[in-house]
């Protein structure tokens, strides 16, 4: 432990004394700071402290001195560990505190007390030096804690726990806390609780006017929409799941495709396709107008349009969840029911369906949360109806920017999603009748009764056909000159977006290339990071025991329940000024994807890791391997498929996500989805649809390639088996 602590101390001191403490304008990797000696901006903390009189770095320096003294003088290992840990904690707290208090314009709080020239000059955000110092201090702290005999003295595990808590704290809780603070802020910049409550529950947000013929507040609209979407997707999802698992339906592989496609579809694409069908110039609208003389209307822009789009978007998710639920009903229970002389309908009604109830509730809540958080469809089809997620956006980017209103709306939305999330975990989560055990259950699922079967086919099949038409429209629409007016065939949209000029070397002249490459780059960087963070968290949750584990688990899953718009707003509010200035960079996009998609990696990792016998780790550890080696040589190889799944999923989500991203993109770093939304706002549907089609194809290709890679890996293993046999 002494060696580890020494090493981190040296790294911390390097960060403090040699690296530029603050953000360097040209970027760290330009290394312009090496030559710019003598400028305040590119100085290390040591220089700032000694030369420029920035006395608030003294406590950090003091912490180093403490740690070094303890390492050199104290001989009792436990005492030494305690002293090192507390010194490092002191250093961390002081360093973070000065960063939070002293911002660009000088002190943020305590302005009267902190009235010094050097403070009033202010400082810019943390840079490389600060980051290295803070990380090193964190690891000195965890090394100390592990040497105190906590967590079986495993420095790697404690370090990992510390790192993930710090990351989640800084990139999930810190920004969300900013929304809370903003919400308490009054117009004149003071804070009060008295004004907060009436603003939070004002009729602007929660108004019930639509029940009396007027208009409702956005929160009520969102809740009504979410309830209907939750109920609708669950019903349709159940119908699909029953057909998929309990009938001899001939086109099951096609149903399977239905579950994959929406995952790779950017959320607003369904909305676009619906406009092509049902908009003023939509195909169906015109057909009906020509045949029956029904007047063309804009009904699709409003509640019904958003509802339709959400049903199409989220039914597959319910389907995916409910396949597991329906299969989870133990066949032997259905057989028991039948041997007790119940017919198929009675078995379904009194045994299978009640057993599925927690699963159905789960699917409903999932649909409810997804609908509340959905941003793309309301943005495109919302019309004059207001929804929370889009109102937040307009409060930030609208003609009158009102961050306080955005904060209040964000809190309302957060309350709703967190409420649903809590209900799901506390009530449904503990009440599962799922009977999936390690033991093979050799029974046969009961067939559906004719009436149920007919009902399932009647609801699901038309819907499946409708979904297929919607997707065909996306590709068809991209090849039409001007939908509804000039239906001639053209490649123009693709050329405009994706043309390449070969005349003078390769030049990516299409308007979409920039955002396309940015999107792919950022998704490629963030996907492995997401997988690593997610799977490491899963490893800690499944394999390690430590105090506060359930709180840890809860906080990592929490970011799943925070809608993208809320995350976006909170990032804008938190990372726009020191100590962490990230807005306008590509780093903030990567970070937002990593922490938005982390719960997916965590869930996948938990599922996969629960199936690995814990004694495998223990065998490795008793063989003298440390936790890191165990993770690398035993667990990681066995988690291969889960890792590929997490990679794929986080990549795809990074490409398709729009809600959080739209707040964070900048002219330099534009993403595909926000580019498309921008085209839609300008009425350039052709390009938007063509680009969407390209995105879907890109992701389909990537998923297939990854699947092939996984397949190959398994083949190689079989080869080895045959060779040695």
């Amino acid at each position: 432990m002494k060696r580890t602590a020494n090493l981190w101390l040296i790294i911390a001191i390097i960060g403090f004394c040699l690296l530029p403490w603050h953000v360097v304008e040209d970027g760290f990797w330009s290394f312009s700071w090496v030559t710019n000696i003598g400028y305040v901006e590119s100085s290390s903390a040591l220089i700032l402290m000694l030369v420029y009189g920035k006395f608030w770095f003294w406590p950090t320096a003091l912490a180093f001195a403490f740690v070094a003294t303890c390492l050199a003088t104290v001989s009792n290992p436990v005492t030494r560990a305690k002293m090192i840990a507390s010194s490092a904690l002191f250093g961390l707290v002081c360093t973070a505190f000065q960063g939070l208090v002293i911002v660009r314009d000088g002190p943020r709080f305590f302005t009267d007390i902190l009235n010094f020239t050097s403070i009033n000059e202010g400082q810019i955000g943390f840079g490389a030096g600060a980051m290295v110092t803070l990380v090193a201090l964190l690891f000195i702290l965890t090394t100390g804690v592990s040497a105190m005999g906590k967590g079986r003295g495993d420095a790697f595990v404690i370090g990992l726990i510390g790192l993930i808590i710090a990351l989640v704290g800084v990139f999930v809780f810190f920004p969300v806390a900013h929304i809370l603070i903003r919400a308490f802020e009054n117009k004149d910049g003071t804070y009060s609780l008295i004004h907060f409550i009436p603003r939070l529950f004002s009729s602007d947000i929660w108004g019930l006017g639509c029940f009396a013929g007027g208009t409702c507040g956005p929160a009520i609209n969102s809740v009504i929409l979410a309830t209907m979407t939750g109920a609708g997707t669950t019903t349709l999802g159940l119908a699909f799941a029953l057909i998929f698992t309990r009938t001899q339906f001939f086109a099951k592989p096609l149903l399977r495709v239905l579950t994959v496609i929406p995952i790779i579809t950017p959320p607003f694409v369904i909305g676009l396709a619906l406009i092509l069908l049902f908009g003023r110039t939509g195909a169906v609208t015109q057909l009906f107008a020509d045949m029956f003389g029904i007047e063309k209307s804009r009904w699709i822009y409003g509640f019904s349009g958003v509802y339709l789009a959400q049903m199409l978007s989220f039914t597959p998710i319910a389907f995916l969840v409910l396949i597991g639920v329906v299969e989870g009903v133990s066949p032997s229970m259905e057989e028991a029911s039948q041997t007790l002389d119940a017919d198929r309908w009675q078995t379904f009604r009194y045994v299978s369906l009640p057993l599925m109830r927690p699963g159905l509730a789960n699917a409903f809540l999932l649909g409810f949360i997804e609908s509340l958080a959905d941003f793309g469809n309301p943005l495109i089809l919302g019309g004059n109806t207001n929804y929370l997620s889009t109102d937040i956006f307009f409060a930030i980017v609208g003609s009158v920017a009102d961050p306080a209103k955005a904060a209040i709306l964000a809190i309302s939305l957060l309350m709703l999603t967190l409420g649903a999330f809590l209900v799901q975990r506390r009530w449904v989560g503990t009440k599962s009748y799922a009977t999936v055990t390690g033991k093979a259950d050799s029974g046969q699922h009961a067939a559906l009764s004719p009436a149920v079967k007919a009902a399932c086919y009647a609801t699901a099949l038309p819907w499946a056909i409708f979904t297929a038409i919607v997707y065909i429209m996306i590709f068809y629409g991209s090849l039409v000159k001007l939908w509804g007016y000039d239906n001639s065939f053209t490649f123009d949209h693709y050329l405009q977006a994706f043309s390449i000029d070969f005349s003078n070397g390769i030049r990516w002249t299409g308007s979409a290339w920039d955002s396309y490459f940015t999107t792919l780059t950022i998704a490629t960087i963030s996907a492995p990071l997401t997988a690593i963070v997610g799977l490491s968290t899963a490893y800690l949750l499944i394999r390690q025991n430590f105090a506060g584990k359930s709180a840890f688990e809860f906080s990592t899953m929490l970011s799943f329940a925070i809608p993208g718009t809320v995350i976006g707003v909170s990032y804008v509010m938190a990372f726009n000024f020191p100590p962490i200035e990230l807005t306008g960079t590509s780093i903030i996009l990567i970070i937002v994807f990593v922490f938005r998609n982390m719960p997916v990696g965590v869930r996948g990792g938990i599922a996969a890791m629960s199936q690995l016998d814990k004694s495998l780790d223990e065998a490795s550890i008793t063989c003298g391997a440390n936790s890191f080696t165990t993770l690398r040589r035993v667990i990681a190889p066995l988690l291969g498929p889960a890792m590929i799944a997490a990679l794929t999923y986080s990549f795809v989500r990074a490409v398709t996500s729009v809600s959080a991203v739209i707040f964070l993109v900048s002219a330099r770093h534009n993403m595909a989805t926000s580019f498309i939304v921008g085209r839609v706002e300008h009425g350039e549907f052709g390009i938007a649809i063509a680009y969407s089609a390209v995105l879907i194809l890109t992701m389909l290709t990537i998923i297939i390639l990854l699947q092939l890679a996984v397949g190959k890996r398994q083949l190689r293993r079989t080869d080895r088996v045959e060779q040695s046999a």
Partner: protein
Amino acid sequence: MQDFKPGSVHFNGVVKKYGAVTALTKLDLSIEPGKLVTLLGPSGCGKTTTLRLIAGLESATHGSIHIGGEDVTHLSATYRKVSMVFQSYALFPHMSVIENVAYGLTVKSIPKKEAHEKAEDGLKMVGLEGFGQRLPSELSGGQQQRVAVARAIVLEPDVLLLDEPLSNLDAKLRRHVREEIRQIQQNLGLTAVYVTHDQEEAMAVSDRIIVMRNAEIAQEGTPSDLYQRPNSSFIADFIGDANLIDCEVTSTKDKRSKIDVNGQELTVNNIAAVSGNAKLVLRPHQVILSNSGTAKGFKGNITYAAYLGNQIQYTIESDLGHLFATSITYDAPLSVGDNVKISFDTTQVSLVSD
């Protein structure tokens, strides 16, 4: 001061709690080097917890643990010179047999070639030469078990831990493998700690047995100590079957006591020097059954009889209560409903406290 030899294991007042549940209440334990000691007890008694504490897979709530004289209480499992054979074998499914056995050596940065040579020696020791290139899934249960043993012993640990190593094998194989394990342990002079809930297995392999119950040590000693001189009715019943018959000690002299059983006076051994209400330990094979009428003794009636080939098992309702008896007499097998007289050799039976 305790005598710390290499390979010895000492527990000093070790307490282990999982939240509110106490898995071990103040355990003091010492294991001599070179001996095979078994931790025996019903499930949930704390035996596996004890083993995992030695391995370092759990950390003690209070107290200290020494291995070979070194205080390892706060040392993580990685750095303890201890290796373990798991109930599920825990062979790494993605590595070949030789890679599995060499794993512990390679993580210690021993060159791969040397590690594989040592691993090959280890495989030879368990009789699995030439199986190195296979995957664990291609081996039978018994072979997998031996790979797990090889993986543990090539590390030349100070202490070898075995956690119910035979429970996944069928009955016949179990006896064969336990003999092998015992032989390897004795050849290498290893200190070994063996956990099982099967008392026969414990008796067969151990130098000493530590019987645990409710998070505490109930009794420890050699197999014959435990069988012949149980200190409680729990041990008497757990080590070999026993009928425990209520009785009252009336007088004691020279480790022989007069007792009152169901109104009859008998004189039996009383090594544990119990007095007052006690239990008479009557092993099933000690019960002598004779046809009713002629013989003296307690009265009984056969309620169940099972022919097992090498013996016949009887259940008897009697003056002494519900009795379980085995007999190797086939001449006149008794049948259900027969009235019998029950007797036993009073020099062979003993008393335990109530």
